[in-house]
Structures are given as structure tokens and as C-alpha cells.
């Protein structure tokens, strides 16, 4: 039998007494797609970082690539063995063209006296793209490409020269922010690379695609390998149980839709701007209305328009009162709170504490004679920490010391403490682990009990199917379909409607 493409034995890693990886074995066969799954904190990112040479392993670990010993903890040794990494943020420069991005990590073909042979470079770039099955003009800026194609460019750049032999490609959460149809294209790229003899280590939270594409699945929990199983030998529920370590109390959805007699709280009337052509929708008291749609359908801009981050035309009304456009403060004053997407960019204040992040924007109730009463503020924040189950070492911990899921809960707390009448959430669980996702879902559900009207914009069909009373599927900037709870609301129906609406 052939040597495995990558073999890691007995890998442990301890950070100041904290065991993060504990004797992990991993065997990646040749021309195999091997998925590495686990919750945040299970040790998968540490494993990847040791492999990338960013962390040193504890003594006792060994590794080999195609039978040749590999020194773990050395970036150059890993690179020399043909191990390549594509990280979640891809590391592309959006303003530069595809060919310029591809050439960032390798020398341009040159002529005297240092002039770039552009024609040759473009040819080379075209060949590199062909390896991942991409065909497009390499002079286009990467920013013009869809997310799946960008990932393709990043993979093409990471692949070593074919002359150096087959590669071991490590893809770290490549699909975290991809909508359903683009995920399929990326998976096709992965299969193509496998067919060409490359071996792929795929790190992912998305179990459907893991089950779809992986030959082997390694599950990590608390720094240990729980199991390594064939992808065909396990189903979604079984894998979830392995990852979490016990049955997750996932309610199968809300009992029934909110009665249509409830009063409407949030009205959108002819809202338009950017990719949105015209959207009208009414969200009633206690109702959760979902917005689905592929990238480009208008789904990605709608939340930002309602919250005032992006300009818009058309009317947004809360309890009948019009909200000024492009003014988040006006929306908040009208009782419309929001949890923006892209947490780090639009949500958190990285240099500040959990407390500052929760109370940002509304300190009035803690001000005594012009001074912030830190004790009263801390007390309130502590209540939110307990209420929402935020895992933090306290109200005064740096926000950056929290995991992504817990940072998201902080943003939810910031919105809910305003006691809004309506809440807009923009992809609230993107890139956070199963347990935190479940917690955020429960928080959203609970918040509607007191009559909050929720508009949930999401790329996650499971999430929409689980939480929403009805889901509006967007296409070409308009609502293409409405799927109601009680009739045919399911993740599959949403996926299907998204793709079908685009084709129409």
C-alpha cells in the first residue's frame, strides 16, 4: 500500500499548563479528502497552526509526508514538503487583479531591465486557474469575483508548482461565508483537486458539506481525537453527537406560526438601494421573518439598509412612525435595534471591554450627575452575561478575549438592552460553533415571547427553517417566494427556492 500523504502521530500541545491537544493522531491518505471537525476550542485550529509551523508541538510528536519525516513547528519544512494552507480570510488583495494576486507569492516572469512580461504572466495565471477549474479573464480585479471564485483563486495561488509533485492542501473554513450554490462550486473544485491526486485536509463547521465531500472524518473534542471514521459511515445526527459529546437539545422548530391577527410592528415599503430593487414586508408582534437569498439577490444588503448603515430609498416604519434613512441613531431611537453582520468590522470595539461593548450607545441609565456610575453599569452587564450565558471571565474582560460566539452574544445583549420593538439580525451565527449557535437561536426565540418583531437575514437555511414563521426568498432584488411555517418550511425547500428563483 502507498505511504499516506500526511501522517501525524501523538501530537500534543500545552499552553501554560492548559492541554489544548492531547496525543492526536491524523492520517491523510493519498488523493483523499479528510475533514477535521470539532467545536471551537476543540483544538482543530491549534492542530492546523502546529502543522503550519506557527506553534511548536510538545515533545513526542512525529509526522511524515509521503514517508519522509517532517519536522513539526517549522513553517519552511512544511512548505518544502508541499503542504499548503488556505485560510478563511483568503489573504487576497481585492483591488488587485487575479494575475497580480497569483503572483504575490511567486516571482513574475521578467525581461531586461526588470520589466514584467505581462503576457507570459497572464498565461501562467490562466494555467493556475485551470487547475482549480476556473475560467475567467485574469485581468479582472479579485473584488469583482464571487466568494467561491475568490476561494478558488486563493487555492490556485496556494497550490505548488505541478513539477514539485502532489500537494497536501489544508483548507481552513473555506465555506464559512459562502451561500449554498457557491458552496457546491467549491466542493466541485475540491473533488477536482482530489481527482488530480492531491490530498486535502478540510476544516469546517458545516457538516452537510463535510458529509458530502469527505472520504474520512476526524472528530476532535477537548483536544483529543474522538474518532476517525469513513465519511460514508456516519450521518448528520451521528456526527453532531460526536462533535458535541452528547445529544444537543435542538428543538425542531417553533410550534406554530404567529397568528396573522397580531399587529404589524416593522413595515418595509418599497425599500430599495444597491442590489435591492424593491422589498415590502410586514413583521408582526412576536413574529420572526426570515430573509434568504443567494449572494447578489439583495439579501446581503437588506439588513444594512434597514439598520441605516447603507443608504436606501423607500420607507421603513416602526409602529407606524417613519425611520430616517442612512441614520442608525434614528433607527435605534425609533425602537429598531440590530445586530450587524461581520462582527469585527461593524460590531465590536476591539480595544474595549465586554462592559463597554454591551452598553455602547446607551449609557443614560448609568449616568449620575454627568458621571458614569461604573458599579451600576457593571451590575447590568453582569445580568446580561448570566441571562445570555456569555462565557467570559467577567464584565471587565477584553472583548477580544472572548470566542466569536460569545462576542456575538455581547452584540445581541447590546441590542436587546435597548428594549426594542423590532430587531434586525444579519447572519447572526456566521462562523460560530454549534453550541454558541444553538444558544443564540434560543435567545432569539425567547426574545419574541415579549412581542419583539424579528427580521432575520441569514445565509444559513437550517437556521431560517428552525426559527422563522415565514421566510422570504430574495432574487434579483425582490421577494421571489414566501415559504410559511406549517406548509413547506424546511432547509431543503429554502435552498431549492433560492436556486430556482435565480434560474427563473
Amino acid at each position: 500500500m502507498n505511504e499516506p500523504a500526511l501522517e501525524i502521530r501523538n501530537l500534543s500541545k500545552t499552553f501554560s499548563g492548559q492541554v489544548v491537544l492531547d496525543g492526536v493522531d491524523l492520517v491523510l491518505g493519498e488523493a483523499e479528502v479528510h475533514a477535521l471537525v470539532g467545536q471551537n476550542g476543540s483544538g482543530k485550529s491549534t492542530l492546523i497552526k502546529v502543522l503550519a509551523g506557527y506553534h511548536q508541538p510538545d515533545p513526542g510528536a512525529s509526522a511524515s509526508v509521503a514517508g519522509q519525516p517532517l519536522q513539526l513547528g517549522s513553517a519552511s519544512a512544511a512548505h518544502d514538503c508541499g503542504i499548503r494552507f488556505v485560510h478563511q480570510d483568503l489573504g487576497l488583495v481585492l483591488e488587485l487583479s487575479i494575475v497580480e494576486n497569483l503572483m504575490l507569492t511567486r516571482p513574475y516572469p521578467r525581461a531586461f531591465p526588470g520589466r514584467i512580461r505581462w503576457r507570459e504572466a497572464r498565461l501562467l495565471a490562466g494555467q493556475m486557474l485551470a487547475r482549480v477549474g476556473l475560467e475567467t479573464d485574469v485581468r479582472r480585479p479579485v473584488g469583482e469575483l464571487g466568494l467561491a471564485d475568490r476561494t478558488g483563486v486563493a487555492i490556485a495561488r496556494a497550490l505548488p508548482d505541478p513539477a514539485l509533485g502532489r500537494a497536501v492542501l489544508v483548507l481552513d473554513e473555506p465555506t464559512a461565508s459562502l451561500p449554498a450554490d457557491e458552496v457546491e462550486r467549491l466542493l466541485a473544485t475540491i473533488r477536482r483537486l482530489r481527482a488530480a491526486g492531491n490530498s486535502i485536509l478540510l476544516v469546517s463547521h458545516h457538516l452537510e458539506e463535510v458529509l458530502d465531500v469527505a472520504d474520512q472524518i476526524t472528530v476532535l473534542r477537548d483536544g483529543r481525537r474522538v474518532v476517525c471514521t469513513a465519511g460514508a459511515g456516519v450521518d448528520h445526527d451521528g456526527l453532531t453527537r460526536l462533535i458535541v459529546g452528547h445529544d444537543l437539545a435542538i428543538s425542531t422548530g417553533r410550534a406554530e406560526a404567529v397568528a396573522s391577527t397580531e399587529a404589524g410592528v416593522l413595515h418595509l415599503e418599497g425599500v430599495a438601494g444597491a442590489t435591492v430593487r424593491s422589498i415590502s414586508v410586514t413583521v408582526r408582534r412576536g413574529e420572526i421573518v426570515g430573509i434568504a437569498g443567494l449572494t447578489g439577490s439583495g439579501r446581503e444588503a437588506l439588513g444594512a439598509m434597514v439598520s441605516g448603515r447603507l443608504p436606501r430609498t423607500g420607507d421603513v416604519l416602526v409602529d407606524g412612525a417613519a425611520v430616517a434613512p442612512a441614520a442608525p441613531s434614528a433607527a435605534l431611537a425609533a425602537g429598531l435595534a440590530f445586530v450587524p453582520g461581520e462582527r469585527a468590522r461593524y460590531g465590536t470595539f476591539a480595544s474595549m471591554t465586554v462592559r463597554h461593548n454591551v452598553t455602547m450607545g446607551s449609557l443614560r441609565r448609568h449616568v449620575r450627575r454627568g458621571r458614569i456610575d461604573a458599579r451600576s453599569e457593571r451590575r447590568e452587564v453582569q445580568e446580561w452575561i448570566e441571562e445570555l450565558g456569555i462565557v467570559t471571565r467577567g464584565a471587565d474582560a477584553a472583548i477580544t478575549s472572548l470566542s466569536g460566539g460569545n462576542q456575538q452574544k455581547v452584540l445581541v445583549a447590546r441590542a436587546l438592552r435597548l428594549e426594542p420593538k423590532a430587531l434586525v439580525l444579519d447572519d447572526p451565527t456566521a462562523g460560530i460553533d454549534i453550541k454558541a449557535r444553538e444558544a443564540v437561536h434560543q435567545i432569539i426565540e425567547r426574545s419574541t415571547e415579549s412581542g419583539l418583531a424579528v427580521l432575520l437575514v441569514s445565509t444559513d437555511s437550517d437556521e431560517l427553517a428552525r426559527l422563522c414563521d415565514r421566510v422570504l426568498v430574495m432574487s434579483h432584488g425582490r421577494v421571489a417566494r414566501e415559504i410559511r411555517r406549517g406548509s413547506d418550511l424546511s432547509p431543503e425547500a429554502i435552498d431549492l427556492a433560492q436556486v430556482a428563483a435565480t434560474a427563473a
Partner: protein
Amino acid sequence: MSTQASVRPKADGGDSDDSAGRTGAQSAPQFRQPISAVLGRYSALFLLAFFVIVFGALKPDLFLTASTFRITFSEGVVTAVVALAFLVPLAAGTYDLSVGAMMGTSLVIMNWFGANTDIPIGLVAVGTVVLCSLIGLVSGIIIVKFRVNSLIATLGVSQVLSAVTLKVSNNRQITGAFSDRFGELGGKIVFGVPIVVLYLLVLATVIWFVLEHTPVGRYLFAVGSNPEAARLAGLSTTRLTYGSLAASGGIAAIAGIIYAMRVGAYSEQAGPGLLFPALAAVFFGASQFSGRPNVWGTLIAYFALAFGVKGLQLSFGPGTFWIQPLFQGAALLVAVGLASRQISQTRRSRRTQAAAAAAYATRQPAS
């Protein structure tokens, strides 16, 4: 093949006793800052103590005298106030490079009105503060409405202000012919402390209170941390920017007024030359205590450097006139260099902490 059977943990994994085997790791992870970071936060205080001890030992009769301390403090007050003017907009992430020129403008206005009119000087002072605040507001409009980078906008404004002061003063020294009572306001010594130092302390306390203990201060730092998130959290980022620049103009005007009290005359070196020492103090100070721009860090950093310069001058005589810019330039580079190293260290340790916290959190319910 049944799913259940195939996914059961393999025997060699030994995972069934997972939680039992790691009770030792159950205790909460330790969160500690590296020692060097802690020392770095008080480096300005150490430096100040170091200078006092070294120069005190070298020149005890010259350096360790009440008059040396008095002179160093009262000479430093104007620059320290200019530093505070730079500090306020910096909290909101805006650079105001016009603070030196603004101080010069304030000084020339005071002197011109003192020399050419009979308007009570108190009224002139109030008018000067208002006018300089308005000029700060203009900088704000250029930055916010015309989307000009704050470095460029305020650099441009500072050149325009220099032109105004040159024109008004006709490129000559103006002596404002201030009353003795006005001069006394700047020269008095109260309980052995120069009164201008008390002005500085009052001003610094007010700014400290606003920055650290009021919503406005919190919001300024929020804008400095993430302007887009600040806007989405409902803050009026434009008003905060306007306000911080207006405040900066007003504080710089106060620096000019204090200079007028102390020295009286206007000369063209007065204003713009203060920008760099002020800026050095703010950035050095930002590496102190909380690790972000702050009032007390700025003042201590400024006076640590001032005492260093004074000590060198006293120890090595009048040939050391070149020492001040060298000293301040080096201090700025070292301080900012150390601070950014510190930040990367803290980030790394935070990352480790985050990993540990996540591991800890996921482990809790399993036990």
C-alpha cells in the same frame, strides 16, 4: 453497517474517561500579562525617577533645588496644555496637527488686542478661546464633510494659521502691553507652586474626568476604536469629531493665553515649535497606564522628558542646546516602538487566553 456502530469511539482513543482524566486542568486558566508589559506601563514614572536620582547625584546643588523644579514645571505648562489639545481628538482617532499653530494664533490675537485696543483682556481671552474653537470646528468640517484625512486637513489648517500670525504680527515681535495684574496671573507662586501649574492641573482634571468618566469620553474612544461600529451603535460620530476638534482648538487657545500671562510678548517661534514635543508626550503617554491616549500618562511623559533635558543642560552646560529635539525624538521612537511591541505581545497572550477560555468553557458542562 449501522451508523451507531461505525461512529462509536475507537477503543484506542480512550475517550470514555476523557473528563475524569483531566480534573487537574479543570481550574480556571490564569490570565496574566507579561512582566515586561506591566513595567512598560509605568516606564515614564521610572524614567522620571531615574532622571531625578541621576542628575540629583551629579549636580545636587543645581538640580535638586526648588527653583529648578519650579522653572521646569512652569516652563513646561504651555507645551503640556498643547499636548492635552492634541490628546482629545486623538482619543477619537483624529490627528490635530494644528495645535501648535493654534497656540501661536491665540497668542498673537491676545497680543494684538492688548497692544492696539482697550478691550478688557479677560474678554479678549474668552473671545480667543471661542474663535480658536470655531477654527477647530472648521478643521472638523474639512475632515468630515470633505472627507480629507485628518493629518492633511489639520496640517493645511496649521499653515493657514501660521500665515495669519505672520500677517498680524507683521513678522515682528509684538508686546501686548498687558497690565501687571495679568502678568501676575501667570507669575504668581501659590504655596511654593507656580500658579500656572495649578491651571494645568485643573485643566487636566477636567479633561481626564470627561474622557474617563462621562459618556462623551467613552464615545470618543469608541469612535477611535471602530468608527463604523460606533455609528451603528447609534453614536453621532460626526458630532463627536467636530466636538473633539473644537475642544482641541479651545485648549490650544488656553495654552496661548497662559503663555501670554507668563511671557507676554509674541514671537514667531512660539507656536508651531511646540507641536512635536506635545505629540511626543501624547504618544509616549499613550503607552502608559491604560495603554491608550490618557491625560496623566501624557503629563508624566512630558515632564519626565522635560526633567531629562533640564538635567542634561545643567550637567553639561550651554553647549547642549541641541539636546532637546534629540531627546524628544528618541523618546517618541522608543516609546511608540515599545508600545507596539507590547500590543503584539498582549495580542498573542490574549489569543492564548482566548484558546484557553474556549477550551475551559467547552469542558465545563461535560464534567
